[in-house]
């Protein structure tokens, strides 16, 4: 009888990993909870109809990307996100990874922009799978591009903003979204459809 209970105890301990075999989400516990933030904390410096300010930024994949290189060729969607390793941002670009055809069918490229530095963005986006679009670092001079567009918040991170630029380099859509929420994909699609 005594041995039977010892065996049961051992089996229970061995069985615990099976009982608790749930596999955590890819980010595990590495997401920093920023809490609820002021929805918008900047003043736009551009408006629909303006020529999009040009920029050149380093890409996580290497090299640089210059906005004006797409002029006359592609529509461009700028996706500013506030910061790596934060809740909403971490669940935004991975969805755009599924939407590649949606962008391509509308002759558009997507440029992801964050004020984080390249190593941070490398580690963070590596959790998202192979992103098809360039991820650009607006780290130095810190947030200069975000500031030029008027989407740099007072604490030095960017807004969660979507800016659609047509192939002529003209801004056609701006959504400085509530930083606490993810812009719905269909709003981007609708803006791109409006360029046709």
């Amino acid at each position, binding site marked *: 009888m005594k041995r039977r209970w010892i065996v049961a105890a051992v089996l229970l301990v061995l069985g615990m990993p099976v*009982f608790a*075999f*749930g596999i955590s*989400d890819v980010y595990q516990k590495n997401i920093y909870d920023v809490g609820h933030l002021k929805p918008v904390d900047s003043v736009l410096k551009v408006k629909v109809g303006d020529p999009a300010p040009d920029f050149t930024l380093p890409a996580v994949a290497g090299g640089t990307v210059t906005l004006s290189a797409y002029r006359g060729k592609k529509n461009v969607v700028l996706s500013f996100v506030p910061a790596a390793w934060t809740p909403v941002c971490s*669940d935004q670009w*991975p969805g755009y990874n599924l939407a590649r055809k949606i962008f391509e069918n509308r002759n558009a490229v997507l440029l992801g922009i964050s004020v984080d530095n390249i190593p941070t963005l490398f580690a963070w986006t590596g959790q998202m*799978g192979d992103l098809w679009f360039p991820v650009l670092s607006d780290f130095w001079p810190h947030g200069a591009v975000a500031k030029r567009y008027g989407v740099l918040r007072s604490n030095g991170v960017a807004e969660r903003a979507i800016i659609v630029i047509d192939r002529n380099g003209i801004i056609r859509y701006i959504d400085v979204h509530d930083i606490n929420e993810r812009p719905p994909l269909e709003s981007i699609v609708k803006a791109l459809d409006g360029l046709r």
Partner: protein
Amino acid sequence: MRRPWWKWKAVFLSVAVLLLSVPAHGTAGFPYVPGDSLEDLSLPVPADGAYRAYLGLSGSGNFTPADVSAPVLLIQIFSMYCPHCQRDAGNVNVFYDLVEKDPALRKQIRILGIGAGNSPYEVGVFRESYGVPFPLFGDGDYRIHKKLGEVRTPFYIALKKDGKGVPRIVFARVGGIEKAEDFLAFLIRETGLEGKKP
């Protein structure tokens, strides 16, 4: 002084009850425990007739897990924006196929997905990207996700109807299905379903 073996038995039983009452790893925040009914979960009856037939529903309006015809319902909480959900989508489809190809199991198990924070459009992109064959529902305002304790995704809840037809939670877990055969065997074991093991 040595403690008699029957006292160790009492200690063991106490520890076992304690361990088994703790939710599985990663279910932190999930406000339900096995045996709860989840009866307040309400979803719209699908407009697609094939999905209505799959779930055993008719008419319009909303339905609850109790309205689903099969005795076991697996609810997947996912997001189009979740990399883990994307990687696991193919495994979930394999799981669905395993169930549907088994004459006994296909009468007993249904699966549906709820896209946390996903609009119907975004759910549609996920469905199309991975060819998801079972019904998916949007939860754009996170209403359901909040009710479920804002669990990480993917998250699975297995319900089984009791003798009175009330669906009761059998288990809940965070993480992907990974290997469909193993997950199905686990589901069969935990729900006590009779059927051919894969």
